[in-house]
């Protein structure tokens, strides 16, 4: 991010929740994060995105009009903001589906204001934000592919290092703590996370596909 506060669009169908997030971000993220608009469904969100310049979209997973995935699918690729999924839903397939649809991360609605501000900044800078829960879902979705001896299919598997990073995040470690634990730099941790995210988005075969179809995602 260059300068100035990060411009945020809050998309959620619960008005009370939007008010709450706005108030919380105003309190915790004054001068850092600025809620420039709100939207209650897919069409409203697209209208706002077409007319307003936005850096980060806080996107509810379940949204009238086809869900948060639909917003990302219908946003034109040029001038595309970054998406951070924010949800009360713990349904694994919806969360993974949202990440695969292009969201940079997933946090639950019970996140504290300060953590949310940090997550928004991180997403605005182009990094991925993985909550422990998301890390767990990711590990679950790639599970089993580790032992499969298909060396050429590296897109469908996490490297040992990526797995370690995911496990530590699932264990509640912050990025800094992960870096300290594995004796690598924070930047390297972020690289691993982006690569996991990319794999989630690109991979469509084998274990992930099977995992997804078991959960009726495909």
């Amino acid at each position: 991010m260059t300068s100035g506060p990060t411009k945020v669009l809050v998309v959620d169908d619960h008005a009370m929740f939007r008010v709450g997030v706005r108030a919380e971000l105003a309190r915790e993220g004054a001068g850092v994060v600025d809620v420039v608009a709100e939207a209650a469904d897919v069409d409203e969100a697209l209208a706002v995105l077409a007319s307003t310049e936005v850096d980060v979209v806080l996107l509810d997973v379940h949204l009238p009009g086809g869900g948060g995935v639909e917003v990302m699918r219908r946003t034109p690729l040029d001038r595309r903001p970054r998406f951070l999924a924010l949800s009360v839903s713990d349904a694994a397939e919806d969360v993974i589906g949202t990440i695969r649809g292009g969201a940079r991360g997933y946090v639950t609605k019970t996140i504290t204001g300060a953590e949310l501000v940090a997550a928004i900044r991180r997403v605005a800078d182009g990094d991925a934000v993985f909550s422990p829960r998301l890390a767990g879902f990711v590990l679950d979705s790639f599970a089993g592919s580790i032992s499969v001896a298909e060396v050429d299919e590296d897109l469908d598997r996490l490297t040992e290092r990526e797995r370690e990073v995911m496990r530590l995040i699932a264990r509640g470690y912050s990025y800094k703590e992960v870096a300290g634990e594995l004796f690598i730099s924070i930047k390297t941790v972020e690289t691993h996370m982006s690569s996991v995210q990319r794999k989630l988005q690109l991979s469509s075969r084998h274990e992930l596909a099977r995992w997804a179809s078991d959960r009726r995602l495909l």
Partner: protein
Amino acid sequence: MVGGVAAGLAEHLRLPVVGVRAAFVVMALMSGLGVVLYAGLWLMLPADTAFTTDTPGAESASRGGRRPTTLRERLVDAGPVVALAALGFGALLVFEAIVGAGVLFWPVVLGVAGLVLLWRQADEAQRDRWRHASGRLTPLQLVVGDGYGAWWRIGAGAVLVVMAALLTFLDSGALYADGWGLVVAVLFVVGGVALVMGPWLHRMATDLSAEREERIRTQERADMAAHLHDSVLQTLALIQKNAADPTVVARLARMQERDLRSWLYADDASASESLAGALRAVAAEVEDAHGITVEVVTVGDAATTDADVAAGVRPIVAATREAITNAAKHAGTGRVDVYAEIGPTEAEVFVRDRGRGFDPDDVPADRHGVRDSITARMQRHGGSARIRSTPGEGTEVRLALPLPTAREGVRSGEPASEPAATAPLQEEPR
């Protein structure tokens, strides 16, 4: 794969689903027998009782259009239509194959059989409605529908049937010989019958599935109401009573949130059925008892419906409870992270807090909590416990336990030939 018939049959007969599907395909190549069988079975076989496949929250979001729809759901909607089309097609093929031996006998048998099957499939309520409807309408109206469109359809159908009859009976000479006349005749008959009966059959089939879905929905609404009454209303009452005490209110709210969340979105098994469920349950207990937040993340799972397995995983569940309780009592922060990774042969649990921490070497000899209930217990059962703590930075307890398997005596440590106890990924070839 179209109607789930092969899968259902395979499950019923305990045969591999691939084999059943292959059999259908082979039979389909034999003059359409497989297609007819498939369509017939589709109409006849009882639908899977597990009609709803998602959690209540996800289902509700789907109904409200707040989730993307899947291809599968869209296909299911078209199911009855496809079945009827397949039935008609199959009937045509069979008709063609056995022609000569009673041209009119088989179509009649097939048509009657199809109607009987549809009738059988309908449940009582639906049948009542049909009977009721037939009381008010003339039978003709019931079959063909109302309005000018219906009469046009009847007219067209009748013309086709008459043409078919003319072709069959008058042209039994030259056209019969090369076979084409017969095919055309059959096509006309089938087309005519389809025009007359099609709308009725289609309406009947869609009515059927709509009625079944509606019944299930009503049951779900009742469940939902009961659940809201039991849990949310009670909690709200408690919160009002304790409005003066913020700690109690926060604890109640958290408790209710966890309860609703798991009811709405978690489809995983309860404490008695799986290791992950048991771990979540102990975390919830400690959360309630000590008024803290315990964030539980699990990867994989192991079914504990088998008594031996249930007994085998008990140590790690008990040790986890002890570790969370310790963190709740001594860490001084309101939050504990629990991460469990349950593989086919081993379960690992990490309990982490960012509290004040301690020096493990400094624990007084008379403090038995950690040594006895965690370390010694895990070692006794072939597992291990490692405690890492730094004063000021927090504590992490790592518990590991080899998992017993449900199969005959594959003991801990040995690689299980097959991950029988775990079922996170049940492969279904498709």
